[in-house]
């Protein structure tokens, strides 16, 4: 049969945003997938150069709108490094807890949308959003905003934690630990889900390393790499948690890694709640006091975001960064899409793309 070139997107129900794919198909077999990006480009790095340091977290949060707090914290950590501001001990525990809650919310949304893509398993979607909305409600009460929290300040948080935070957080992680096995019932025993994920889009260990992918995609291919372990920040070195690793690197393993990470996150939060000092001071410096000259020439901050390893390279200047450069994990994870989709069936493109967990705003910047 002749090879036909098909255009998918930029507006397509399954591309989770405005990704455009040019697909060459021979019958139903994919010969080539070529991603075209840039439909959400708005020049974040350039805009940050025109803003004072603590005006930019709002821009950073909109990079990854499924896990905004993670980028917020990464940027503020870079600024803290530039200013030489230490983070208070109580704030370190609070930040770790909020970041892990954000990871849970992000992975839950991913699970719901993936199941929805793979043959309209709408129950999973509804369950995932039910659980996610509980996490989001807690984060909203901590920060005052539902989606874009802008909760980090130099050395701490924007406001003290709510008085009943400990009880509510404990109740929430108990709830999540209780409900997560329900997803195993509905996904791991689901014939459609297994058929469409097992063995689909397998990424070998060598390819994963060579392409530079990170996060759950890398760990599903059998590489034990996590910034929280390899370069611990805050109190992660005092906490006991495992890095879930799978071997096959297919879509199913990527799902399992994220599933296990949710359970590890609740484990981390549980330890933080017991180790955090009572009535700890978590307040950071107010925004208006910020803006002295920064000390080092260059700053590099690394964090384990829910989607992989995020990195900020910054050249600080007075009042505002001279240049800021971002390593967004999904941009690099997208580069394996062409490799994974070689020779699969057309419908599997969306199963593979969904399992990579792409966020287009972070890719286009």
């Amino acid at each position, binding site marked *: 049969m002749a090879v036909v070139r098909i255009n998918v997107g930029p507006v397509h129900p399954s591309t989770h945003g405005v990704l455009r794919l040019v697909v060459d198909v021979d019958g139903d077999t994919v010969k080539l997938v070529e991603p075209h990006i840039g439909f959400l*480009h*708005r*020049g974040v790095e350039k805009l940050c150069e025109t803003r004072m340091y603590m005006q930019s977290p709002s821009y950073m949060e909109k990079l990854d709108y499924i896990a905004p707090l993670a980028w917020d914290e990464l940027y503020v950590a870079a600024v803290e490094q530039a200013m030489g501001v230490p983070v208070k001990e109580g704030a370190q525990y609070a930040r770790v807890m909020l970041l892990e809650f954000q990871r849970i919310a992000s992975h839950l949304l991913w699970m719901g949308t993936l199941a929805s893509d793979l043959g309209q398993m709408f129950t999973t979607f509804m369950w995932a959003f039910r659980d996610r909305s509980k996490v989001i409600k807690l984060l909203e009460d901590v920060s005052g905003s539902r989606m*874009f929290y802008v909760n980090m300040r130099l050395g701490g948080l924007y406001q003290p934690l709510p008085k009943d935070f400990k009880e509510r957080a404990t109740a929430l992680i108990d709830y999540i630990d209780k409900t997560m096995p329900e997803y195993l019932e509905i996904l791991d025993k689901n014939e459609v889900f297994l058929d469409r994920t097992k063995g689909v889009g397998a990424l070998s260990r060598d390819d994963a390393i060579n392409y530079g992918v990170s996060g759950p995609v890398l760990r599903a291919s059998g590489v034990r790499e996590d910034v929280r372990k390899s370069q611990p920040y805050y109190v992660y070195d005092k906490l006991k948690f495992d890095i879930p690793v799978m071997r096959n690197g297919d879509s199913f393993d990527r799902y399992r890694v994220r599933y296990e990470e949710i359970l590890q996150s609740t484990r981390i939060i549980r330890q933080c709640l017991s180790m955090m000092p009572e009535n700890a001071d978590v307040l950071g410096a107010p925004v208006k006091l910020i803006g002295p000259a920064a000390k080092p020439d260059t700053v590099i901050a690394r964090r384990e975001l829910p989607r992989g390893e995020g990195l900020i390279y910054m050249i600080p200047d007075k009042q505002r960064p001279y240049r800021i450069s971002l390593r967004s994990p999904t941009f690099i994870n997208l580069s394996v899409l062409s490799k994974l989709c070689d020779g699969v069936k057309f419908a599997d493109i969306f199963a593979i793309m969904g399992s990579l967990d792409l966020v287009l705003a972070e890719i286009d910047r």
Partner: protein
Amino acid sequence: MSDDAEAMQGLSRKVPNAPYTVEQFMNAEKEMTKLLVDSAKQTDSKTPVNAVFAKLSDLSKLTPLAKDVVQWSRTNSLWPLQFGLACCAIELMDFGASRIDAERKGYLLFRGTPRQCDVMIVAGWVTKSMVPRIKRLYEQMASPKYVVAYGECATSGGPWWESYNIVQGIDQVLPVDVYACGCPPKPENLFGALMKLQDKIGGRVAGNNERSVSENMQRHEGERV
């Protein structure tokens, strides 16, 4: 009772959950069909099909009762386009998910193709490279069609106001009916915006009559779509 009388009784029966009878619905349908046929007669083969249907937005030629019936019907069947651009699309998903459950108001028939939809919810910032695509989606939607600008970015450009690649508000490209402000607006806010849109379509607030035909037929010369 003869068959005719039975049929007459059926016609004057109220439709469940609707304030009009079967006969009133049938009459309104006849009048709308006439409107469409008249509109088709005035055009030639070169006129785009969408332009023929666009005449259906102008209800001034209908009888008052038929107009009410048509407006009531349009008010209560809003089919939004499944179309997310950026952050606000996540709240749009939450809008359709378990917490809000938009289905109870009849908003949740998110369709993948623009040809089945009549509400476009622009959720997210609009870049310059996205403008021709959004225009094309809007053109493909069947008349009458409505646009909701959801969020600061679609309203005015939002935080990206100074960016070199951003259109400062979707209203520079499409005629917007309702704005929902916030960054991002809560799903409840979208619920309120769609209820406002219902008021507007039903003629309960000003602004419906002036904007009877909202079309954007002409493309810019040399525009890549």
